[in-house]
């Protein structure tokens, strides 16, 4: 048993080396296999999210309500804000920046001053090099409001422009002071959570992550137009209200569950992740590699132990079964325990395991053949 185990270990290590050398041409295979059209922007959580979101049962978030400000001018937004005190909201996240003053802003400014638990947005620019941010866009009155209105950065992190939004940032370190913030500014959703649910914001802070994955699947929100506020006030009283444009084409982003989602809806999902403690915890790279190594070792050991006659059939069945097991396990952990396993390593290793077996056997046979010839040659010379 021990020699076979050592042999299996050696083949598994060979498989890892092969996967490292050959990984790049095969890296697209996971996305094609799982039919993700975005071949250059794929994460394993996208597959889990798509599957989970396709279920016929969804949860309407009772704590967060979105008010669609599409088509409203400043006067209209002021009218909406004037209703906020009557709803006694836990927090009001206004995802609209008023960059420049205009005539007749007095009503808007008064409505903002009178809105309870308000959080205003700020857009930041990332500075290349030092990883810090500087001020991009902010409402013109941010410095001058009589009371300190918390600010939150609305920037959404992505690998590149127009790529999928999977995470939200917790805090943004800043180069220079912005209003009352000297070292860092919280993200918009963190600022809203700090206002509405300080204890839950503390839980987020204790996690200590710069980026947190947004738990998108199977969650919906009540969205109302301004004219529907009065008739549905009972559904908004005491809740967290997010005010923004759900139809703004300039603020549409790709997410794992849909190709176009407005910024305010992404904020709603991120906020829901915080409020309902729906954080997703990933396996570390070391843990993912360990899992891949273990699965590869299982398949290689099985191959080494089996007699040659039935080996081919059983190995193919084992490979497919393990593949399904890995996907199923990953999905179950994602859904039931909010854990994320990146099984792309495991998928690769299942393929490379048998490849490495064939290479090992081939090289071993070549070596044995050469050694036999060498010994014959030596024996023949000795006879002479």
């Amino acid at each position, binding site marked *: 048993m021990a020699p076979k185990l050592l042999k299996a270990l050696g083949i598994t290590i060979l498989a890892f080396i092969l996967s490292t050398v050959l990984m790049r041409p095969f890296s697209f295979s996971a996305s*094609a*296999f*799982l*039919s993700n*059209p975005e*071949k250059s922007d794929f994460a394993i959580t996208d*597959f889990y999210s*798509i*599957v*989970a979101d*396709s*279920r*016929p*049962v*969804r*949860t*309407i*978030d*009772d704590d967060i309500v979105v008010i669609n400000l599409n*088509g409203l001018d400043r006067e209209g937004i002021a009218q909406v804000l*004037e*209703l906020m005190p*009557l709803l006694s909201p836990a927090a009001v996240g206004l995802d609209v920046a008023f960059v420049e003053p205009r005539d007749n802003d007095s009503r808007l400014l008064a409505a903002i001053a009178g809105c309870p638990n308000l959080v205003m947005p700020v857009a930041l620019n990332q500075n290349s090099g030092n990883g810090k941010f500087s001020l991009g866009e902010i409402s013109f009155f941010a410095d001058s409001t009589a009371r300190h209105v918390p600010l939150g950065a609305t920037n959404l992190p992505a690998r590149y422009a127009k790529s999928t939004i999977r995470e939200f940032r917790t805090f943004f370190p800043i180069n220079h002071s912005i209003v009352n913030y000297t070292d860092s500014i919280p993200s918009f959703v963190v600022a809203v959570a700090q206002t509405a649910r300080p204890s839950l914001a503390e839980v987020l802070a204790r996690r200590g992550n710069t980026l947190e994955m947004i738990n998108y699947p*199977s969650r*919906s929100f009540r969205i109302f137009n301004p004219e529907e*506020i*009065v*008739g549905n*006030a*009972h559904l908004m*009283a005491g809740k967290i209200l997010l005010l923004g444009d759900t*139809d*703004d*084409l*300039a603020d549409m982003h790709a997410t794992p569950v*849909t*190709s*176009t989602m407005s910024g305010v809806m992404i904020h709603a999902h991120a906020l829901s992740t915080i409020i309902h403690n729906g954080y997703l915890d990933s396996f570390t790279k070391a843990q993912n590699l360990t899992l891949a190594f273990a699965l590869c070792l299982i398949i290689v050991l099985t191959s080494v132990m089996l007699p040659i006659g039935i080996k081919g059939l059983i190995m193919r069945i084992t490979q497919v079964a393990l593949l399904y097991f890995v*996907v*199923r396990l990953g*999905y*179950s952990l994602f*859904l039931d325990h909010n854990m994320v396993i990146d099984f792309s390593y495991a998928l690769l290793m299942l393929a490379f395991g048998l490849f490495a077996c064939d290479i090992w056997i081939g090289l071993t046979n070549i070596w044995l053949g050469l050694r036999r010839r060498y010994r014959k040659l030596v024996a023949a010379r000795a006879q002479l």
Partner: protein
Amino acid sequence: MKKLLLVSIISALGSLVAVAQYSIHSLSGDVKLKKGMQFVPVAKGTSLTAADVLELGEGASIEIFNTTNSQTYKCVKPGLSSVSGIIISATSLASNKGKSIRDNMNFSRSSASGTGHVYVESGMVKRTMATYDPEARNIEVDPRELSRFVVNALRNPDAVKDTECPAAFTHTPNPHGGLSFSIGNTLSSPIYFNVIKVADNAISKVCISELGQPSGSYVLLPAQTISREHLSPMAANERHILIMTHFNFDVDKLIEQIETTVQSGDNSIPDSSLNVYFSIL
């Protein structure tokens, strides 16, 4: 306004004790509620009991909201189903992880259910489009998704009754029996629209309307208007339908795809993330 808000909050709180446990959260297509021996149409917000029986037509869908746990349960299966049956079935499907994975796992790049992407790359970037709408210069609405929406709307006009046109749109018959329309783009982004027609409700025989724009679609930039009038009398058996979207679409591809969708018997539910406005002139 504020007094009205206060009164509505107080009365709503008071009526909470009488609120039904189930209600219709959303629906599309032909959905009816069985009342005795009759079937009556239902709308969003209709209260339901667990024993109520619903009839779903081909291609219809319904989501039932449970106030107790704030969850919605979706059903797309045509035929008769009780509310409790829908909830049990949806819950069972949701917990069947193996089936969920199998339904979403396939070996091609295209979305199997057709509910993936509603916008596609349009191929060659046209110079004029790059000037007109640089943000969306190489995007067009997926003609297959758009055709499903059009077919569904033509089959179930009541389902799209509440779809409000976001632009300033008016249309009137003119004294000679013709038709005219006027659209003003009050949005902050371009809008694209075209007009097709259907004769004798034969959806598969859709073609471009006399008021339509061949090869492509109309486009209006923000703060632009357009008016068009057809003076000659229109045939009484023809329906002229305006289709408006936020991205470019090719009317030739759309007409071809509508024919294909009808002939293939495709009853898929249109993707609700596609913003399409639909109006009969």
